[in-house]
Structures are given as C-alpha cells and as structure tokens.
C-alpha cells in the first residue's frame, strides 16, 4: 500500500467510478454530458497507465470526443424541437413515463445477477493470464509494420477491422435513412471569436492527424486515431459554418464513406491467388498496401464521423421547414 503509484491508481479508479455515477444521477442533462466527457478522459488516462496508449488515444478522440459532440448536438436538437432551448434551468426533455414496480424489481434483479457474475468471473480469472504476445512478437516481422497494435488491426485481424468499417458504413447509412425531412434545427454554431480560432487551428489539426496516421506503423497512433482527429476538423468546419453540406455534395460524400471499406475489401480479395487466401498480403508489398489501406480508411473514418455528427442527409428541404414528409 505504500507504493505511490498504487495510491494514484486507487484515486483514479475512485474518480472514474464517481464520475460514472455522477453522470447518470445529475439532473441536468448538459451537466451529465460534461461529466461523461470528464469520465471518458479519466478512463483514457487510466488506460495510458495500463500501457495502452493507442486505446487511450482512441477513447479520448472517438469514445469521448466525438461521442460527446454527438450527445451535445442531440441535446441541442431536443431542446430546440421542444422549444426549451432558452429556458433556465432546462427541464427534462423526454416525458417521463412511470415504470411499474415489478419491472423495476426485475431490472434490479437482472443487474444484480449480472454484476455478481461479473465479479465472480473476474476474481476467478487468473491475473495476467496467457495471451497472444508471444505469437504476435513472432509474426510481427512478417506483418509489414513495426507497431504490434497496427499489425493486429491491419494484418492479423484485418477481417475484424474491415467489418468495423462496415459497421461505420452501416451507421452512416442508417443515420441518413432515419433523419429524413427533419425540421431543420439550426446546428449549434460557434461564436465569431471561435470562428477565427477554428481557421487558425484547422491546418494544425490536419498535420497532427496525418502524423498520427504515419506514426501508426511503428508507434502508438493509426487510422482510427488519425481519422478521429481529422474528423475533429470536420466538426469544426461544420460548427463554424465554414462548410455547409449541400445536396449536390451527396455523391462525393457517398464515395468518401465507402472509400476505405471498398478499397480494403478490394485489396483483400485481389491479393488472393497463387496459393494465397484473402487478406494475405504479399510480403514485399505488405507495408505499402497496409499504408495505402490505412490512409484511405482514415479518410473514410474522418468523413463518416463528421457525417454522423452532422446527422441528416443533406437534401433540399421544403422551404417551410418542419413539414410532415409523405
């Protein structure tokens, strides 16, 4: 117990749990989201502590950053639609329907059961059990990249990563499909000062994102983190109204969404042959191919995340917004 790092661990853990509880119990939704973002950043910190910088980066950028932005945007939209945007303190936005007591009890029992199972499973599991590390270390030289996480993501388990791209694609298609003909709530806009700030920071962020992507081959960083950072560019562009999606841009946007997945899948298929199976990159081209895929996937992720933030498909709305669509 004297180890100062352990004390830090305990404090961090306590803070994470406390923030989790707080973000669910605080009345004001805006506060809840802010608390959640703090929670996410502290979790990322904990993961850095557990020597998982890639994961921490992804959680901070995507799990917390993009998710937080999405939540805030949605909250803004809800307040706009219900006409409670300017009220202070803001009332709860969804009508609370009372839940019958038996259901609550059943839910509580369900939660208890699962938590018990969790605790039992965790305490029963070996600490630092067996793992892939020796296998990965052995196969790493043949993977074409030096950083093990990137090797796992884009070579050993490239199939998973491809499907992850498919999930993103499914999400953006679903979102476009869901939010049609919405009454056009104005996107939350930034002030003028922030506008200028955005202009200044954008190029810097682009550079950082590209760097992360490049570094992904040998050090923490990679397509997802890079994509997330580039997506931040998109978010800023949208928020500052420097870019307003137009119906005419839809075609390009579609291509951008599918670019990463399409090329990834195409390469996976094309390399097959001559005794090789799908995803089996020829050793001499492995690095090139992986970098190519990573770059395109990064672009797709960035555009997709930005589109997910923007929400509805940019269609020409009837001039009197809020009309019921047929």
């Amino acid at each position, binding site marked *: 117990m004297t180890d100062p790092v352990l004390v830090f661990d305990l404090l961090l853990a306590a803070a994470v749990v406390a923030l989790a509880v707080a973000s669910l119990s605080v009345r004001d939704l805006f506060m809840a989201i802010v608390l959640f973002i703090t929670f996410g950043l502290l979790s990322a910190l904990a993961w850095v502590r557990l020597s998982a910088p890639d994961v921490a980066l992804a959680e901070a950028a995507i799990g917390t950053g993009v998710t937080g932005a999405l939540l805030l945007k949605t909250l803004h939209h809800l307040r706009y639609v219900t006409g409670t945007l300017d009220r202070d303190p803001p009332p709860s936005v969804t009508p609370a329907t009372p839940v019958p007591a038996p259901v609550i009890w059943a839910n509580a029992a369900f939660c208890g059961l699962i938590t018990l*199972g969790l605790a039992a*499973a965790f305490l029963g599991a070996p600490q630092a*059990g067996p793992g892939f590390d020796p296998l990965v270390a052995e196969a790493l030289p043949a993977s074409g990249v030096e950083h093990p996480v990137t090797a796992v993501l884009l*070579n050993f388990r490239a199939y*998973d990563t491809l499907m992850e791209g498919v*999930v993103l694609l499914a999400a953006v*298609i679903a979102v476009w499909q869901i939010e049609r003909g919405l009454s056009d709530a104005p996107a939350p806009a930034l002030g003028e000062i922030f506008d200028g700030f955005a202009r200044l920071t954008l190029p810097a962020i682009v550079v950082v994102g590209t760097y992360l992507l490049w570094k992904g081959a040998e050090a923490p960083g990679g397509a997802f983190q890079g994509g997330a950072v580039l997506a931040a560019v998109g978010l800023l562009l949208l928020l500052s109204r420097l870019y307003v999606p137009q119906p005419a841009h839809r075609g390009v946007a*579609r291509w951008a969404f599918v670019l990463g997945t399409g090329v990834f899948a195409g390469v996976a298929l094309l390399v097959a042959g001559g005794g090789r*199976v799908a995803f089996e990159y020829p050793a001499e081209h492995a690095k090139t191919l992986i970098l190519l895929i990573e770059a395109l996937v990064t672009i797709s992720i960035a555009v997709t995340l930005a589109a997910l933030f923007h929400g509805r498909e940019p269609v020409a709305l009837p001039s009197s917004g809020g009309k019921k669509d047929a």
Partner: protein
Amino acid sequence: MMLDPLTLVLFAPLFGAVAAFVFPRAAAAVGLGAVLVTCGAVLWLAQQVLAAGAVTVALGGWEPPLGIALRADGLAVAMLAMTAVVGLLVSASALDALREARQQQYFWPLWLLLLTGMNGVYLGTDVFNLYVMIEVIALAAVGLTVLSGTREAVRAGLEYMYASILGALLFLLGVGFVYLQLGRLDFEGLNSAEPSGALSAALALMVIGLLLKTALFPLHFWLPAAHANATAPASALLSGLVVKAALYIFLRLSTYMPLPDEILITLIGTLGAGAVLWGGVQALRAERLKLLVAWSTVVQIGLIFIAFARAGQIGLTESWKAAALLILAHGVAKAAMFLAAGRIKDEVGHDVIRDLDRSSIRPTLAQFTFALAAISIIGLPPSLGFIGKWSLMEGAMAAGYWHWVAVTMIGTLLSVAYFSRVFAGFLRFDRMRGELAEHKGWAVADIAPLTLALAAISLGLMATPILSFLELGYPFGATP
C-alpha cells in the same frame, strides 16, 4: 485473383452494399444481382461441403488463435442457404412492396450489409469477430426497422437499438472474460479449455447478451413492436432471419463451451416455455395482424429453446438437430407470413384483425399464403415445422420429459387458436361493406411469399436429406 466460395459468400453482399449505396438509382438492380451472386456462392460452397466435409480458410494466412478463420460445415451452410434463399425471395417482393424511391434507395444497402453480417456470423469461428458481426447486423437491422418512418416504427426501433447495444455489450464483456481466462478467442481454444467457474460466468454473460438479441422471454420486450411496425419486407427479414443469427451463435457456443449443468439447461427450457405461453396469450389478444405474427415469433423462439433444452438422453449432440430444424422452418415460414401479412395490409388498407372481414377486397392469394405459412408455424404435417416439432417431442418423450411435451402441445393449441382468429377474418363474408370484389389473386407480388410458404411445407418431405446435410463436418458430433 483466385476466388473461394467462403470469401465470396462474405464479399458479394459487401460489395453489393457499397455499390448500391454509391449508385442509389441502380440500388435495386445492384442489390438483386448481389443477392443472386450470394446464392450462387452458397450453392458452390454447399457443393464443396458435400464433397469434402467442412471447409476452412484462415484469413490472411494467419492461423488461429492469432488470425481469424472462416469455417463452413453442414449446419453453417444450411443457415447460409436458408438466409440466401429467403433473402432472394424477400428481395424480389421488396421490388414491389417498397413504393417510395427513397425506401428503395436505403433498403438495398442496409439489407446487403445485414446479409454480410449474417453470413459472417454463420462462417465465424472467433468470438470477438462474432461481436463485430452482430453489431453490423444490429445497425443494419435497426435501419430496416425504421424504414417505414412512422412514429411507432421509430419508437420501436429505438427500443430495439437499446436492447441490441446492451446485448452486444454483454457479449463483448463475456468475450473480455474469455480472453482474460484463456488468452485466445477462437472456437478451437474454447473447445480445448478446461471448464472453470470463471469461464462459465463468461459464457453466461455472452448467453444473456444473445438471449436479449434473439428475444427469448422475458427479454423479448423489444421484439413485437419492432417487427410489427416495420415495412413488410423488413419484418420478414427481421423475424425470419435476424433473430436466427444470435440463436445460431448460442447453439455454437454451447457446443464449444458446454453449459455447465442441468439446472441452466432447465432454466433455458423454462424461459422457452414462458415464451410459448406468454407469447401465445399475447398473440390471442393482439389487435393487428402484424403484431400477432410478431408475437408468434416470440412463441417460436421459445419453442426452439425448448427443443434445445429438452436435450434428450444423449444431450446436445442430439437435441441441436431439432432446434436447427425448427430454426430453418421458422425462417422460411415466418418470412412468408410477414410478406403475406404485408400484402394483405396493402390490399385491404389496414391490418386490424377484427375488421378484416368488413373489407370487400379479399386478397385471396395472400390469404392463402398466410394460411400455408401458418400450417408450418403451427406444426401441422407435412411441413418442416411439423418435422421439427416431431423431433422435439420425440426426443422429449424418449427421455421421459413429459412436461416439455405438454408445453409444446399447449403451445400448438394456442397457435391454432390465434391463427384461427385470422382465418375467420379471411373467410367471413356477412359483415362485408359493399359487393365482394372479384377474385383478386395472382398478383405478381404474391409469388415470392407463396413460394416461401410452399417451400416451408414441402421441405418437410426432405427432412432426411436436410438432417444428413446438417451433420456434414460434424458440427456437434464427437469430433468437432
């Protein structure tokens, strides 16, 4: 480039989805083409499995546990085939059923992504990969649920989304525990693992997640509204195919990680019985046709779990066959039934059961299709549903589990009762407003559901070859 059918089964719908999304105007043509190619690939794969038993491909040339392998055995190919054929016919009917260009434009990419996800599940041998696949399925399925855009559909879609995310997260946590315990994620590793309490807990987590996704009572709460409010082709896909993916993972997992004891099996069977009874009562009370059909899905899921739990004396090595037969039967028949219900709703203009007999328009062929599908779902001979039910009851009876036989029989009677409510609406003529419109059969849109319904019935005659096909590659045998 050298193709193998395993990869093609996965990539054909994926490329189809990409193309259908990028070229929205050609979405229907692209989509139908992709589904056709998938059918061909499944056929090719079936041929290989018939010739050589299970087929395996280690993707990227990395053998598990480091890499991910795809594996096709009899059971997997049977599921793929069911999905492809049902999918093809539902696709055909979607050409007519979805009239808005916008619906067409989004239906195809979403449905093809769904198909990618399902094919991935049937071929998958890695639990984390299965997690990603069920998420692909979940997002595409939610998109399809809300395709109609009505308030009820969106509300149901949201509930579905919550349940889906939660189920997937429980599954993911279970995967985490498996990794913590074993340090690997492939089926092979699970199979060779020493049974332990922690592993059982991990399995339990995954199973709960899957039960939530497949809507076993009492985790079925999200299903009826979601399936009842979607457009007809979407309902057919959701009810006929989507719930089967989680069921299939459950079947697979329980082989590789045998359920720890008899009590758990009994519990699952009891939940199945609960589904059969509760779902049956709710179906009796349902006011709308599609809602009734959706509740009947809850009942059928329960029945499949009873089939699974009844175990017989030889345990899972025997009982999975009855479960698999019921899964296939339900997939085909329920798709037919939802499509037919959609056609009836289209023609009559509503689907309120008690007012069906007031309509002077009687879509005869759709009604006939509905009745044929009901024959398989009730489990009357010679349908595949009957064969499945027979296998279930035979096993239960041989093992002396009379209570499971009794539950099955009660469930069957309930299903007769709730379906006969619908038939009365079809066949009563003295409450009609106005003259009976002349026989309006033979609409082209009726052909797809009719084909499915006839298949559900006639497949019962082919049960023996189906069973021997299912056993190819020893999916659940002594040498997995």
